[in-house]
């Protein structure tokens, strides 16, 4: 009976739980199918409006939005625990593998975890929203004295890729870089880019014969490298857990609003629904884009990559604040304005 009571908590509070318990005890067949059936229909019952299909569609969209928010916030929170860039001998081993025998200069792009290039004030962010000039902090390095390497870039990049492989890196991509002829779309190769990963680090560097200065010594090429931190397994796990928790809470919230307005007076019902619709309208595009990027990017790259998909939310980009404000107004309207009437199905007969 205890197991049934636990399972019946999937249903909203009310006499339906006792009614179901009575039936289940009479049936006496606690099969897996029965349990899954109760879970499924219990979560549906949480939404109220049993004859409506739209309420399920709305609940799925809200759950997707709150699930995305949960994933983004969890990934952002756990990113604080990601180990910092290597230092000392460990960093020297990396820079020495890329640029052996050369004095190397390097620095972090910023002190914190993220870099906001535009450096807006908080008031400015509230007024206009953040722009897209934000990124995860990187460690950039290259040969001292201007990032110039003597020799030809092709044999040098071949040797660099081999050195990285020998040092335990996995070279994921070596591709030509340069300008593209507009007429033909053909690439006019003037350099090469390399991408390699090892443990939770990613390195990208480019060797190119094109520079914007005339100080490059003859017979040399320009080379610079960027080191990035990749999310360890626990960031991905936290994002997945945050997604599930957020989606679950969004589902419950939708059910609460739906059941509370199901038989309430017209004014709070219309106001609550309008606010909820507007909140979904302004947040859904960002949610869909973020979820798409969250799922597709790791598949495309073949590795969990820096969770850029979450920054549009955690950095307040887009309509996050407006969506949050509309959602809070909706909850307040329903909490204080809507008084649910007696439900003929789930309430005792008077």
């Amino acid at each position, binding site marked *: 009976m205890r197991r049934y009571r636990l399972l019946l908590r999937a249903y909203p509070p009310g006499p339906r739980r006792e*009614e179901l318990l009575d039936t289940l005890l009479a*049936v006496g067949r606690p099969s897996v199918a029965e349990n899954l059936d109760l879970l499924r229909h219990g979560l549906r019952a949480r939404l109220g409006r*049993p004859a409506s299909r739209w309420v399920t569609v709305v609940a799925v969209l809200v759950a997707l939005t709150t699930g995305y928010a949960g994933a983004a916030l969890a990934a952002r929170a756990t990113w604080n625990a990601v180990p910092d860039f290597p230092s000392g001998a460990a960093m020297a081993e990396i820079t020495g593998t890329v640029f052996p025998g050369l004095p190397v200069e390097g620095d972090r792009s910023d002190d914190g975890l993220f870099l906001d290039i535009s450096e807006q004030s908080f008031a400015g962010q509230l007024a206009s929203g953040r722009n897209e000039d934000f990124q995860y902090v990187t460690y950039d390095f290259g040969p001292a004295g201007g990032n110039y390497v003597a020799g030809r870039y092709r044999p040098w990049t071949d040797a660099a890729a081999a050195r990285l492989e020998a040092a335990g890196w996995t070279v994921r991509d070596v591709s030509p870089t340069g300008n593209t002829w507009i007429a033909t779309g053909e690439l006019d190769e003037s350099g090469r880019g390399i991408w390699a990963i090892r443990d939770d680090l990613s390195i990208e560097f480019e060797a190119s014969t094109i520079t914007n200065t005339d100080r490059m010594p003859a017979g040399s090429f320009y080379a610079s490298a960027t080191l990035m931190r990749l999310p360890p397994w626990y960031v991905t796990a936290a994002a997945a857990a945050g997604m599930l928790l957020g989606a679950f809470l969004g589902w419950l919230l939708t059910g609460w609003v739906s059941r509370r307005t199901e038989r309430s007076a017209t004014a709070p019902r219309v106001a609550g629904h309008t606010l909820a619709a507007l909140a979904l309208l302004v947040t859904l595009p960002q949610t869909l884009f973020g979820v798409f990027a969250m799922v597709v990017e790791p598949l495309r790259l073949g590795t969990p990559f820096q969770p850029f998909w979450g920054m549009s939310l955690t950095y307040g980009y887009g309509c996050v604040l407006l969506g949050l404000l509309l959602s809070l107004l909706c909850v307040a309207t329903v909490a204080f304005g809507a008084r649910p009437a007696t439900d003929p199905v789930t309430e005792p007969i008077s």
Partner: protein
Amino acid sequence: MREPTFWILTALAEQARHGYGVIQEVARLSEGQVTLLAGTLYAALDRLTAEGLVAVDHDEVVDGRTRRYYRLTDYGALALAAESERLQRNAQTATTQLRGRLSGRPELGPA
């Protein structure tokens, strides 16, 4: 109308029943071919109540737990009768077609 809905309405056609009563009656009427799960049954009862096909009849307290009885409404009886006629027509059509096949009449090709 889905099959579980049809059987639930059929089980309630004669008299008001509680949840377990509906499950038992559906199993009996369908000769054991349809076994309703409790979650499915109450989801259907909620939906049918909202649509006006079924109504709450009365409550009964058994062993300290409330047992709720449901009955078929007049509108529900009409809907069940319409569905029953539709199924009969379908069955009749299939029977006629099969009779033609058995009597050796040439079969019609695809349209």
